[in-house]
């Protein structure tokens, strides 16, 4: 029997190539709804505002997605963001290091935290959930220690990273985040490293029998997540012009939500960075739109909850077909 190219068929064909199609349509629907509901939502200004906000969540979500694909989870990203931004703030204001130095220090601190997570979770084989939960507490504690529990004002020097570039309209931080999205999507789908992460996340025993040393890869995923959270700390500090030891509380849940909305499985072995990025966009658009409408906090919470559930319902509908 020949199949005609009726619309549903076209959809399924496109969604074979572009798996994230349905979740992308959900994003468009959300944009449409807000454009109708809020006068000034569908404007360049809003677009720029959203694009300026999301780089920190984006880079953190990339790392989270890699960790989830390898079969782990990283609850410590929020605390690492705070720690890195605390270190950057202190380095810039107290020790008056040059910006590049400070930034590298912050990212390195994230890397160290990620490495501790990685070593305990892979070589010592402790449950990664618990290791990173411990790091969530410990990292926050360190951030308080570094800053003496105070917000550190850094000033405009660091903000260049977050200011829209003239002519392009988006910030360097956004460009970095976008670049990382594409690079890591390529790493995931087109390199041995990515393939191994997927294999380990799918069936760790089979991966070992296939000659893959699983520890270095699990470790690397958590290390990368730590480094990216360190970068997130830099971006956050640039966005605020300050480092706040309380920054990014609960960020881990947003990052996981973004990844899962974008099709990543919490059981490991399946996921897409592009999808996760669309997840980040959905979360950002939602927050922005609700703020522009000025709805009450209870209603905001309720709506956020419902949209998260709806987004996965739509995605489920895709995979059912």
């Amino acid at each position: 029997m020949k199949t005609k190219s009726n619309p549903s068929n076209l959809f399924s064909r496109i969604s074979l190539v572009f798996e994230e199609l349905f979740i992308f349509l959900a994003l468009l629907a959300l944009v449409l709804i807000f454009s109708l509901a809020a006068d000034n939502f569908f404007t360049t200004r809003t677009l720029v505002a959203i694009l300026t906000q999301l780089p920190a969540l984006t880079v953190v979500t990339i790392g989270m997605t890699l960790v989830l694909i390898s079969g782990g989870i990283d609850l410590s990203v929020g605390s690492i963001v705070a720690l890195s931004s605390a270190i950057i703030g202190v380095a810039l204001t107290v020790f008056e290091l040059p910006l590049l130095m400070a930034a590298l220090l912050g990212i390195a601190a994230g890397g160290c935290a990620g490495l501790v997570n990685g070593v305990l979770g892979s070589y010592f084989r402790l449950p990664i959930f618990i290791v990173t939960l411990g790091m969530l507490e410990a990292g926050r504690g360190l951030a308080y220690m570094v800053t003496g529990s105070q917000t550190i004002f850094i000033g405009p020097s660091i903000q260049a990273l977050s200011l829209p570039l003239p002519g392009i309209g988006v910030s360097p931080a956004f460009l970095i985040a976008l670049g990382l999205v594409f690079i890591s999507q390529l790493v995931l789908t087109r390199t041995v490293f990515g393939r191994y992460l997927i294999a380990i996340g799918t069936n760790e025993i089979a991966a070992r029998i296939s000659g893959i040393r699983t520890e270095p890869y699990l470790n690397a995923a958590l290390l990368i997540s730590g480094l990216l959270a360190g970068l997130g700390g830099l971006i956050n500090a640039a966005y605020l012009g300050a480092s706040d030891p309380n920054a990014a509380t609960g960020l881990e849940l947003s990052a996981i939500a973004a990844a899962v909305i974008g099709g990543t499985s919490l059981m490991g072995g399946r996921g897409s960075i592009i999808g996760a990025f669309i997840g980040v966009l959905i979360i950002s658009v939602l927050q922005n739109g609700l703020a522009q409408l000025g709805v009450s906090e209870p209603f905001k919470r309720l709506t956020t909850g419902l949209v998260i559930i709806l987004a996965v319902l739509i995605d489920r509908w895709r995979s059912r077909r």
Partner: protein
Amino acid sequence: MTARIRIEGLCKSFAAPVLEEVNLQIMPGRIHGLVGENGAGKSTLINIISGLLSADAGTLELNGQVYRAPSRPQALQQGIALAAQELSLIDTLSVAENIFLSALPQNFMTVDRASLRKHAEELMAQVGLLAMSAHTPVAKLALAEKQLVEMAKALSMPADNCQLLILDEPASALTTPQVEKLHQILRERVATGLSIIYVSHRLDDVLSVCDDVSVLRDGIIVSTAPTTYLTANDLITAMCGQDLLEHRESSLRQAGDLRLKVDQLSSAIFPQSVSFECRRGEILGIAGLAGAGRSELLHTIFGLAPDRQGRVVLLNEGTEVEVRTASEAVKQGMALIAEDRKTQGNFADKPVSLNTTIAGLGKLGVALAVLLPRREERVSKELIDRLQVKCEGPRQSIDRLSGGNQQKVLLARWLQTESDVWLLDEPTRGVDVASKLTIHEQLRELRDLGACLLIVSSELEELTALCDRILVLSNRKVVATFEGGQWSNEQLLAEMFSAHRGQRAVNH
């Protein structure tokens, strides 16, 4: 007399049609064999009868009544017992709980543990799981033992309720004595009037236990006949549509240089130390009863066992390399095809291409080496063709393949790495007769190219047909070594049982 089950015009397609107009009728009190090539649709047919899949078209009748089973619980209620091909045991529960999982005995709202244990032990004794406690967690069992538990589970349905017992490759990991014991139970059961569908690739087994046998080819039943008039060759001809070439007997040949040296090796799972050697161009068989530690030996050699003592050395043109871990082993040219492909082999829900190429990626050296999907698919396609894997193509997910075809994909994974020291644990489990010969040909070809191969198999015929030398394990000790042609089945069996006397008897 009304048929126990009557199937008419049954159709089922996934991406491609799998069953096309299947008609089948099984009378009460008969054991009905179902044979066919890998991917012929046997499991699909069985899954429809047992409520795990729904048919696209066709009617089913049970005892003359229209039969519908939209889900497994409904089928169970109507008396359809099943031992699934891909085992369906719960690792964290005990043997007893697994056996009675669909109908746990209750007593004041709690599980009646005494009665559970008593009934479980009866069934365990029947199938030959003698020395083991009913409370052992299934995770601790070896594959063969799991298969016996699966069997006990299928037999657990009360006789007055059970209409049809379906066994999908129940014996693929069992040794000959175990299989015989099983057949005896089936004969007893069937005498009470229930019917049995028996799927197997071991045609001799089918001919010896079944009353009738149907052959499924390309989604159609091409023949149904009583076994009395049939030979294995008839079945093969019906399955493949042609005769198979007689395989050549392994001739005594000159083995090459020493390639693998196992020296005083032991581990937590294989405590008695063992030493032996294997040469290039040699197939070394490892025989033993279930539980003899054959899989453990292979795992220990490959570097997967904890607390490993002793040495495994690979020799190559004068150089000696010691291997300690699985990844070193693979790098040095070792390959392991593990026994339980579902938990130790397959990357489930991943495409065939990933499953075939994954082990070879190590050759690329760097982790950030770039993969070209087209090249991967081409490599994968070549292997699919070479091993005649029946699938839609490299992009199909491996868990959509039939069991035997999954096994071929695993073989393909290692062919691709150009390994020359092969450890194969039941390499033809669940593989059809024709494919088995294909695989045997591949293994001989590997040997002729200078590989050394260690093969564990529960089928003595397979070992005697393939091997140049056979090592016999009994109760985790090497009890004998037979040089090529100097063995007989009786001698092998005697050695296999030798160290089990008075010990944990696996069967008899």
